[in-house]
């Protein structure tokens, strides 16, 4: 399905980098010459509490703001979003559009039979990615899980190029970045995981690229098509 606007909802837990993921994805889309905005939605900042972010990418100017109530793509960053209901709504996929895609970071299936049926009725494809495992294997830290989630949605929808993602990552992590106290602390935490900043950028891009490939292969094999129209 070809769309003029791709609405992506990222449901995660505080500290996982869902907000950063949406920002990086939108920055990459802007680099690709598309219209893009990103915004987060969270309560008072705390780790492991529900946190959501939204990335809208389009071929015309985007005015829409706030929570994405009717998304095309939902990314679940943490199994607890589903298993413990750490979502702003129950079920986590409420509002998803017909022919949409759900991407879940888990190495085991998490959906109930009822969930599977309701998503099937809407012709929604479900893709499981072992995002945290990939992050640990490639980057050596689970803090790079958000990179695997960026790669997944980009691999399936091709909404941004890998070149643009590379540029966006450098823009986000390569220089001083202004963020709230909580985010700044996490930035410091991930920087300490790597000897050098170049290594951080390299390993994160490798995580993005690997998940991009896995997701692209899955989409091709299962004939899942959800893409942005040409501008």
């Amino acid at each position: 399905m070809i769309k003029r606007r791709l609405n992506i909802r990222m449901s995660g837990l505080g500290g996982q980098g869902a907000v950063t993921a949406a920002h990086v994805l939108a920055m990459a889309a802007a680099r690709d010459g598309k219209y893009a905005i990103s915004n987060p939605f969270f309560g008072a900042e705390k780790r492991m509490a529900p946190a959501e972010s939204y990335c809208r990418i389009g071929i015309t100017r985007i005015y829409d703001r706030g929570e994405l109530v009717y998304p095309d793509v939902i990314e679940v960053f943490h199994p607890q979003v589903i298993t413990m209901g750490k979502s702003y709504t129950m079920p986590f996929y409420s509002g998803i559009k017909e022919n949409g895609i759900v991407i879940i970071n888990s190495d085991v299936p998490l959906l109930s039979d009822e969930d599977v049926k309701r998503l099937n009725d809407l012709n929604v494809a479900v893709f499981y990615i072992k995002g945290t495992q990939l992050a640990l294997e490639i980057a050596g830290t689970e803090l790079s899980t958000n990179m695997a989630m960026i790669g997944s949605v980009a691999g399936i929808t091709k909404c941004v190029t890998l070149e643009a993602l590379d540029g966006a990552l450098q823009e986000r992590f390569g220089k001083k970045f202004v963020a709230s106290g909580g985010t700044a602390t996490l930035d410091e935490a991930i920087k300490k995981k790597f000897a050098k900043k170049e290594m951080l950028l390299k390993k994160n891009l490798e995580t993005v690229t690997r998940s991009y490939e896995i997701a692209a292969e899955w989409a091709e094999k299962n004939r899942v098509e959800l893409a942005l129209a040409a501008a």
Partner: protein
Amino acid sequence: MATSSVIGKKNKMGQTYTDPWYMMHEAPRTPSFFTGSEVIKEAIRRASCDVMIAYPITPQSEAAALIGELFVEGYVGDYFRGESEFAVMSECAGAAFGGARVFTTTAGPGTMRAMENFPMWAGARLPIQMIVTCRGINSPLSIQPDTLEISYLLNTGMLVWHAETAQDFFDWILIGYLVAEEPDVHLPLALCCDGFFVTHTKDVVQLTPADMCLPPYDPYRSPVPCMDMECPPVRMMRDPFVMKSNYISYATHASWQQEVWAAVERSRKHTIRWLDGLIEVDNGDADILIVSSGTAVSQGREAKALLEEEGIDVGIVKIKTLRPWPGEEIREATKHAKHIIVPEFNIIGWLAREIRATIPNSDRVFAGPHVGGGMTMPPEIIAADIKALLGIKTAALAGRGS
């Protein structure tokens, strides 16, 4: 009084004091992908601000902290932190009485706590600029946007503008000082936006050159003398009229209130020039008009696009300033409309009330949809309400949680 122009001279940061009209309308612009909070910082970098007083109300907006960084860099004359919003607004008054160009930020409960100061600012004719990144004010608490607090500001005597986007915010912070500091205006400005939807959203904003800045504030252009405790202009502070109870006191207060509101009216001509009108109309010939302010305008634009796909023609009226109130403009823009839809990010519907009180045949106004407590307003629900008004049957929308 200065006898020569500062235009073309450099400040201590190497920025050139630039003719404001050239800076805002003709100077080259650089596209930047920023959050609204970062945009506020970039505007203040160019605003030749003397004093910023902060109550750092994160997570609503990071602007107060970011402007602290600007102070460290040297772009802001002085920077204080208040111990509460009430303290901040009182300190702003002190700095402005002393002849400084003053900036501050607030949101939601903070605005309410500081409320006593706002009519005082207006009465004292202090051209302070206050950014209001709207947030819920009721209990249970919310850090998400709800525009109820704007309705409390409407009768304070302040100028009240409502920005739609981060671009509006950038331009209007700079323009705000130019209008507020005009000698025949000289009033405080509450520049409002919907928090989170503007402050936390990353969007492309066109910035003016960083090496250009506004000319500094000239306190000698004030219509009332700078405060001098030894020789107060109307003995306002040392022997205030509040201590008297006679016809002179009543007459003074009544005439001064009239003067404050006359100053709001006089701001109209400057605002029309700088903002290119108090309202903006898109497809104004349509039978159905969405009339609103702030983020509700953006959501209305998306609803317009959704309805266009179904062959339903809708126009948009964006209200930029709430004080001064563009009554004449709204009457003219809506004179042929059959349905006037007023979506709002609050349950009360204060904007719809203002519009109903302004136009003939006010039963054309449909007050809604409304979302409150920081909820998002998907364009789909505006489109659904419009279709319902037209008698078109629609499938029930699944909300989150259904």
